[in-house]
C-alpha cells in the first residue's frame, strides 16, 4: 500500500538500524509519546532490534488509557438513562469504569452505539429528534478537531438534542509534567506526528530548550520510528537538544491552520485529570463559553460524580515511564485484556495491552494465564 509498504521495508530498516548501532556509545532513555507508536514498536519487534543502550519508555499518548475513571463513570451514567443514544468510538466500550463498562450498559438495555466519526452521531441526532444523542469526545489534539467541528455544526444547524461528553487532553503539558517529575528518566522525546500535523511544531522549541531534551516529531510506521530514534540518538550523542521534524510528509511547521482555528473557537484550555497520573495544569480542553449548552456533563447534571482509581493498578507509573508493564504485579495475572484493571490494558495502543498481546514470549511466561481454549 502506498505510504505504508514503503515505510515497512526491511532493507531500509536494516540500514537505519546499522546507523543507530554505529552512532550509539552509551545508554539513552527515549520516550515515544504516542500509543500508536508504542503499538508499532511492539508489534514489529523494533525494541528487540535496537542496541541494548537505547531504551524506549512508553509515554502517555493513548487516549483510551488516560481518560479518567471519573469520566468513564459519567459516560456510564449518561448512557444508562432512558431516552439517551450514547455514541462512542469502539475501543472506549470495553474500558472499565467502576464495576462495569459500556458493553455492560448496552447488555442492560442502554442504547450505546459505535460510530466511526462524531459527525455520524450528529446524523443520528437529526434522525432521532425525540432522543438525546451524546458523543463521547475524548482524545488528543488529533480527535479534537472533528469533535469541535461536530459541535460547531450542531450549533449552526440548530440541533438541540446533541451534546458532547468532553475529556480532551493536550500533549505539550504532559511532556512538561513528565520532565518536572523528580523521578524522570526521559532524555529525549519522539513527539507524536499526528498531533503535530494538527498543532504544528511551535509548542516544542521552548520545551526542548527549557529541559534540554531533543524532541523529534515522529510518524507511526516502522521506518518512521527508526528514523525518529536515529535522529534523537544522534542529537544525544552530540549533546544537542533541538526540535526536528522527521515526519515531513504529514507535518507542516504551522500545522493545520483551519483545524486550529476551529479548536480555538469551540474549546478553551482547562486543567485536566489524566488517568493514573492526576491533574496536569492546562493539559485539557473543555467547551468554550459560547458552546457550553452542548456540554453533556451539564445537560445531564453528572458534574458531581467523583471516583477513585483501584489501588492495584499502577498504570500511572507505566504512563510516566517509571515501570515497564510486565514489572507490575498484576500484569497477566489479575490484569489481562479480558479483565483489565486499568485502561493501559484495554486499548491495543495501551502499553500494557501491547506487551500482553505481543511480548508474552519474553516476559516470564509462567506468570501469564494459559490460553482459555484448552
Amino acid at each position, binding site marked *: *500500500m502506498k505510504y*505504508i509498504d514503503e515505510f*515497512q521495508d*526491511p532493507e531500509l*530498516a536494516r540500514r537505519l538500524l546499522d546507523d543507530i548501532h554505529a552512532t550509539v556509545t552509551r545508554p539513552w532513555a527515549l520516550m515515544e509519546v504516542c500509543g*500508536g507508536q508504542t503499538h508499532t514498536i*511492539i*508489534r*514489529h*519487534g*523494533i*525494541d*528487540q*532490534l535496537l542496541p541494548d543502550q537505547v531504551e524506549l519508555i512508553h509515554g502517555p499518548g493513548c*487516549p*483510551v488509557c488516560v481518560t479518567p475513571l471519573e469520566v468513564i463513570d459519567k459516560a456510564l451514567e449518561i448512557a444508562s438513562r432512558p431516552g439517551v443514544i450514547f455514541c462512542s*468510538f*469502539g*475501543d*472506549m*466500550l*470495553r474500558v472499565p469504569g467502576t464495576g462495569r463498562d459500556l*458493553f*455492560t450498559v*448496552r*447488555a*442492560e438495555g442502554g442504547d450505546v*452505539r*459505535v*460510530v*466511526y466519526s462524531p459527525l*455520524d452521531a450528529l446524523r443520528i441526532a437529526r434522525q432521532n429528534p425525540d432522543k438525546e444523542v451524546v458523543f463521547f469526545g*475524548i*482524545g*488528543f489534539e*488529533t*480527535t479534537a478537531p472533528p469533535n469541535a467541528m461536530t459541535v460547531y455544526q450542531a450549533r449552526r444547524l440548530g440541533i438541540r438534542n446533541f451534546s458532547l461528553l468532553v475529556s480532551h487532553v493536550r500533549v505539550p503539558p504532559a511532556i512538561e509534567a513528565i520532565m518536572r517529575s523528580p523521578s524522570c528518566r526521559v532524555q529525549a522525546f519522539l513527539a507524536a506526528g*499526528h498531533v503535530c500535523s494538527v498543532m504544528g511544531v511551535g509548542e516544542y522549541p521552548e520545551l526542548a530548550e527549557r529541559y534540554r531534551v531533543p524532541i523529534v516529531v515522529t510518524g507511526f510506521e*516502522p521506518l518512521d520510528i527508526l528514523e525518529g530514534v536515529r535522529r534523537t540518538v544522534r542529537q544525544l550523542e552530540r549533546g544537542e537538544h533541538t526540535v526536528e521534524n522527521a515526519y515531513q510528509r504529514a507535518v507542516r511547521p504551522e500545522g493545520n491552520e483551519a483545524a486550529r482555528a476551529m479548536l480555538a473557537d469551540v474549546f478553551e484550555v482547562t486543567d485536566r485529570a489524566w488517568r493514573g497520573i492526576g491533574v496536569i495544569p492546562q493539559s485539557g480542553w473543555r467547551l468554550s463559553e459560547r458552546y457550553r449548552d452542548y456540554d453533556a456533563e451539564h445537560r445531564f447534571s453528572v458534574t458531581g460524580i467523583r471516583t477513585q482509581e483501584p489501588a492495584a493498578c499502577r498504570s500511572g507509573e507505566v504512563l510516566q515511564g517509571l515501570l515497564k508493564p510486565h514489572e507490575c504485579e498484576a500484569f497477566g*495475572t489479575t490484569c*489481562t*485484556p*479480558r*479483565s483489565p484493571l486499568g485502561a493501559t490494558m484495554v*486499548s*491495543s*495502543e495501551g502499553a500494557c495491552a501491547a506487551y*500482553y*498481546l*505481543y*511480548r*508474552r*514470549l519474553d516476559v516470564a*511466561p509462567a506468570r501469564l*494465564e*494459559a*490460553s*482459555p*481454549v*484448552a
Partner: protein
Amino acid sequence: MPETSVLNPQLPDLSEPQPVPDLTTWTCPAPLRDQPRVVMGHGGGGAMSAELVQHIFAPAYGGEALAQLGDAASVTLGGARLAFSTDSFVVRPLFFPGGSIGDLAVNGTVNDLAMSGARAAYLSCGFILEEGVEMSVVARVAQALGAAARAAGVEVATGDTKVVESGHGDGVFINTAGIGLIPAGVDLRPQRVVPGDVVIVSGPVGVHGVAVMSVREGLEFDVEIQSDCAALGGLVEAMLAVTPDLHVLRDPTRGGLAAALNEIAAASGTGVVIQERSVPVPAPVANACAILGLDPMYVANEGKLVAFVPREHAEAVLAAMRAHPLGRDACVIGEAVPEHPGMVVARTGLGGTRVVDLPIGELLPRIC
C-alpha cells in the same frame, strides 16, 4: 435436542435433572462471573466465546462428541463415520458485496463439514423472520441459498420457519445444520499436528470481513472487494486426493486466521510460527484495516482454509490447491514447532517477533 441424542448415544440422559454449575468454583483466570449478562463479545468467536462454551454449555450438555470442539463433530452411526455441524447466521446487512446471508448459511455449514474431510450431503435450514420484513427480501435470500446449495452439491432436506415480533429480530436469521460422510482413512484433528508440519493458507485473508464492514450502516466506505464466500468441499477433496494424511484443516471465519491458528496450537500442544510477510493480505484489505485500526489476521474469511500438512506432502498438496480455482493463491505461511507450545508467534517483516493472540471479544476499531 432429541436429534443430537439419536446421533450420539453417549450423551448424558437429559431427562434427569442436571446439577446447576457451581459459579463459585470456576477456575478460569478471567472469570465469566464478572460478566453477569451476555455481551456482544460472547459471540465474537474469541476467548469470551470459548469461556461461554467451557463454563456453561459443555458442563450442561457436553459429551464425547461435543468435547472435540471442532468446526464439525465426527460421530459414528450405523458403522458410518459422519461429520455433523450447525451454524447460525446473523449477518448485517443481509446482502453485501459478493454474497448474502443465504450464501453464508450454506457455505458456512458446508465448510465446517469440509474441515473434517466430509463432502456435505444434507442440510437443514431454519429461518427466523422478523415481523414486517419484506417478502421480496425473504425471496432473495431463499434464492441465494438455493443457488449456493446447488453450487456446493448439497441438498436442503428439511427446514423450519418461525416469525418473531417486530423489533425482536434483525430481519432474517438463519440456522443451518449439515451432515456428510467422512472418507475412510481421513482423520483431521488438531491433536494430530506435530512439530515440522507445514502451515498452508488457501488464499488472501480478511476479504469477507472487510467486504461486509464496507457496507455496514455507519461505516460505509468504498472498497474494490467482494466477499470470498464459497463452498470449500471441492478444494478439500482435491487436497485429500494427494494424500488422506492431512493433519488438520480449519476455515478461519470469525476471529480470522489468528483465532484458527490459536485454536490449533492450543488443542495440539505444539507451537506455531508464521512469517508475517508470507500471509497474503490484498491491498484493499490492508488499507481498510490500516484506517480502522484492525489487524487483517483477525478479520473473518468465508471461503478460505488453513491446513497443517506433514512436511513430506506439503509441496504436492500446495500444487493441488493451486490447481483448484479456490486455492489459486495458496501459499505456505509457517510451520508447527516444538517451542512455545500452545502459542502462535509471528516473525515480523523487520526481523522481530510477536505473539499472535486469540482475539478477545468483538473487533473494536481504534480511536486514532
